[in-house]
């Protein structure tokens, strides 16, 4: 019995030894790379935002001017997301929201959309999707300009009827054979505009953290 206990402890010590070395290597790698990773992720995010909100139209640090948004059925989100506000001389220009179309042909379609202060869409982009390649993937800007048909649209003139694909009696084009994908996106964008209408003031409210710009908590 004693022998079994002793050999177990010895073997476990051996395993722990490898675990410690492994952890040390990982900690060192993390330490070396995490700043670069944070910078890369921010740069990528800024690149995406600059596609829908022209960098010349605002003068604030848009990545710092952020607010956390609780999961909301109108946005289709199930976890907290982050919204960014573009301002020019302190006046709100646009808000960048994350939204999810839950009913794509092959699951969720993640969107990012920018809404101007007057309620018009500045632009929409698909961040990730699993739609059929060659059929439903014309929602990607790299494949087709379809997604730009949202530019300048709003709920100021159009109601729920117009905010549908043409097949359902709405105003949005779609390609034959792939209507489920654009239908899901049109619905999601419409709902996001409703969310914006209901929360406009909170979204554009001065962010206390952001007014003390530069200082990290």
């Amino acid at each position, binding site marked *: 019995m004693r022998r079994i206990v002793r050999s177990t402890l010895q073997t476990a010590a*051996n*395993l722990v030894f490898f675990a410690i070395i492994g952890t040390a290597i*990982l900690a060192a*790698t993390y330490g070396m*790379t995490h700043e670069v990773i944070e910078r*890369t992720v921010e740069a*990528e995010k800024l690149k995406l935002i600059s596609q829908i909100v022209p960098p010349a139209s605002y003068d604030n640090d848009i990545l710092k001017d952020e607010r956390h948004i609780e999961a909301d059925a109108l946005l289709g989100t199930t976890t907290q997301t982050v919204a960014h506000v573009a301002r020019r001389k302190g006046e709100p220009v646009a808000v960048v929201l994350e939204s999810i179309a839950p009913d794509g042909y092959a699951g969720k379609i993640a969107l990012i959309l920018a809404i101007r202060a007057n309620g018009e869409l500045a632009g929409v982009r698909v961040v990730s999707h699993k739609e059929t*390649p*060659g059929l439903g993937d014309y929602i990607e800007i790299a494949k087709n300009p379809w997604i730009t048909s949202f530019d300048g649209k709003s709920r100021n003139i159009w109601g729920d009827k117009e905010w549908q694909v043409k097949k359902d009696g709405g105003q949005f084009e779609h390609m034959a054979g792939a209507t489920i994908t654009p239908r899901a996106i049109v619905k999601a964008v419409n709902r996001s505009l409703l969310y914006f209408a209901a929360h406009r003031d909170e979204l554009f409210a001065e962010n206390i953290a952001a007014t003390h710009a530069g200082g990290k908590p």
Partner: protein
Amino acid sequence: MNANEFKEIVHNGLWKQNPGLVQLLGLCPLLAISNSLVNAVSLGLATTLVMTLSSASIAPVRSYVPNEIRIPVFVLIIAVLVTVVQYLMNAYMYGLYVVLGIFIPLIVTNCIVLARAESFASKNPPLASALDGFMMGLGLTAVLAVLGGVRELIGKGTLLSGIDLALGDGAKDWVIHVIPDYHGFLLAILPPGAFIGLGLLIAGKNWLNLRAEAKARSNPAPLSNEAVQG
């Protein structure tokens, strides 16, 4: 490691025991990520890097690892190396990191990595083990490259699409539109295309082997050292 051993390890990895065509280990990434040349080669090279490092680090410690915890220790070493590769790709090859996504961490569970650790690196000296890991990785990468290239060509009519993700925006013009105005052949891009393509590759390899055997039988060359081995 003498010249003969060296030659045998290289031959095993690239052809005779090719992980993609003969051992058929690590099919998950092979089938899932081979829809374009760039994706396929990138994941292949990441796997090669992990295999070389894992074999090279398992071989020197092999006599200190008690037999009963051999596999936990190997898996630990492989997991550490994959995480390191993942951090590095996240930091310096972000576009590719996003495209390969879940398949980078999945290298940990790629059967071929543990298979080489268990069947080669745990019994051989570090240098030979590193070479074995490297060659097995290259063998897998070669199969991935052919499969990815063929699927991309038939499916989309291009080669090297997405190269800018791996090498930066400057490489955007490297994409070759082999067939202009091609409308695409969806089957090749979707999973069935991977199965059909791999099946054809395996059949092709078997055919080459059979032909070489038949040639050797009908034309019995003087028995050299190599012919005996082959």
